[in-house]
């Protein structure tokens, strides 16, 4: 079998069955005419190397056959912007849902290791499912219609009223933030040395020993955050620095909060009084709920800040 026949057979294998004979006959006729023309030029029969040289520009059989297919893409340019937007939105929802589910499991008393495992595995599997289903649905729409005509209609009045560029930070707000952070650091740093603080003002409750491993991480996160705020106080126009510093400290804060959530009871009764024990249980539950709320709010705020920063990073200050 000649190289030409092998090439045509390979092309045939990638063509729709109904068109195979027709396309291969036409292509074969053209190629044979070209081969004959070349042989006449050379004044001798073509060698296999000559045939290979003539066939090479036609490209791989798979690619040549693909050009005969009506569609060259899974999702076309009319649908692609809708596809990306839907995919990003669905992935964000999946992440938030699994974050909430994971936190609920921890609240229900599962160890903190389960939180990260559940979050990672759950989010990964959900992302895979979301990607598969969204892609399948859009590929189906592309196959059936090529576009959704209803999506072409839009009302200019529905446009957002304004695009807010990242504005310089307010020096007053940053200064106020620094004052509160400094006060917190002062109190926090004195906890290990203050019996009054460790016994929660001699309330009968005490901070659990679990706190001891959190003194330093919390202190570091707050001090780094204060250093970033000090820079912002001097240069409130550095939007990128502000964004990166905020992202880093918030992420570190989220990790600390998640670890606190998994640390077990953070307040223990200092006496065997049943009322104090009840109070300790209520306090621990309140702390866990507040940690969950703080994690969710911080995660969502950070995600929105990131999206806003990425969208407006090209907008200069007014």
């Amino acid at each position: 079998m000649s190289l030409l026949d092998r090439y045509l057979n390979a092309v045939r294998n990638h063509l729709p069955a109904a068109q195979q004979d027709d396309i291969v006959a036409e292509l074969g006729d053209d190629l044979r005419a070209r081969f004959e023309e070349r042989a006449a030029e050379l004044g001798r029969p073509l060698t296999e190397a000559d045939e290979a040289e003539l066939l090479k520009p036609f490209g791989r059989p798979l690619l040549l056959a693909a050009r005969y297919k009506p569609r060259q893409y899974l999702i076309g340019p009319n649908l692609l912007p809708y596809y990306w937007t839907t995919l990003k939105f669905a992935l964000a929802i999946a992440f938030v849902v699994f974050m909430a589910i994971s936190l609920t499991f921890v609240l229900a008393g599962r160890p903190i290791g389960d939180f990260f495992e559940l979050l990672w595995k759950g989010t990964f599997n959900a992302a895979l499912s979301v990607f598969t289903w969204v892609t399948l649905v859009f590929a189906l729409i592309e196959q059936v219609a090529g576009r959704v005509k209803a999506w072409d209609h839009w009302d200019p009045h529905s446009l957002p009223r304004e695009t807010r560029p990242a504005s310089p930070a307010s020096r007053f707000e940053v200064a106020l933030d620094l004052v509160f952070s400094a006060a917190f650091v002062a109190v926090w740093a004195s906890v290990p040395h203050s019996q009054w603080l460790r016994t929660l003002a001699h309330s009968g409750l005490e901070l659990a020993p679990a706190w001891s491993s959190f003194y330093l991480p919390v202190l570091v996160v707050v001090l780094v955050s204060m250093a970033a705020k000090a820079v912002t106080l001097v240069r409130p126009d550095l939007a990128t620095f502000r964004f990166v510093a905020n992202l880093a400290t918030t992420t570190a804060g989220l990790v600390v909060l998640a670890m606190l959530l998994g640390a077990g009871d953070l307040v223990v009764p200092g006496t065997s009084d049943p009322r104090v024990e009840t109070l300790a249980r209520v306090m621990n539950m309140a702390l866990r709920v507040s940690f969950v709320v703080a994690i969710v709010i911080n995660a969502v705020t950070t995600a929105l800040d990131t999206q806003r920063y990425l969208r407006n990073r090209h907008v200069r200050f007014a």
Partner: protein
Amino acid sequence: MASSPDTDELFENLRLELRRGCLVLAVLAQLRTEHYGYTLRKTLADAGLPVDEGTLYPLLRRLESHGLLASEWREEDSRKKRFYRLSAAGRAVLKQLVTEWQGIDASLTRML
């Protein structure tokens, strides 16, 4: 200024994009006279528009599936060939495309 590989590639992509639209017009125009693939490709190449088979034949199929071309298998020089020619719908579309092309050509000539 010397062109970089990036600009060479960019130019090549833009050139192909520019030719792609023109090729439909050229093929329709040439098929006012009946041709089979090989002679059509030679005619286009002789007219200064070389096109490879991997582009031409799928294009002919596409134009035929849209009803702009008609084709039939016939034997010539003891070999079966598929002959293409413009259909009635193809003639009407070609007329519109020629008008559009002349408009673009006139505009670009003024601009360039």
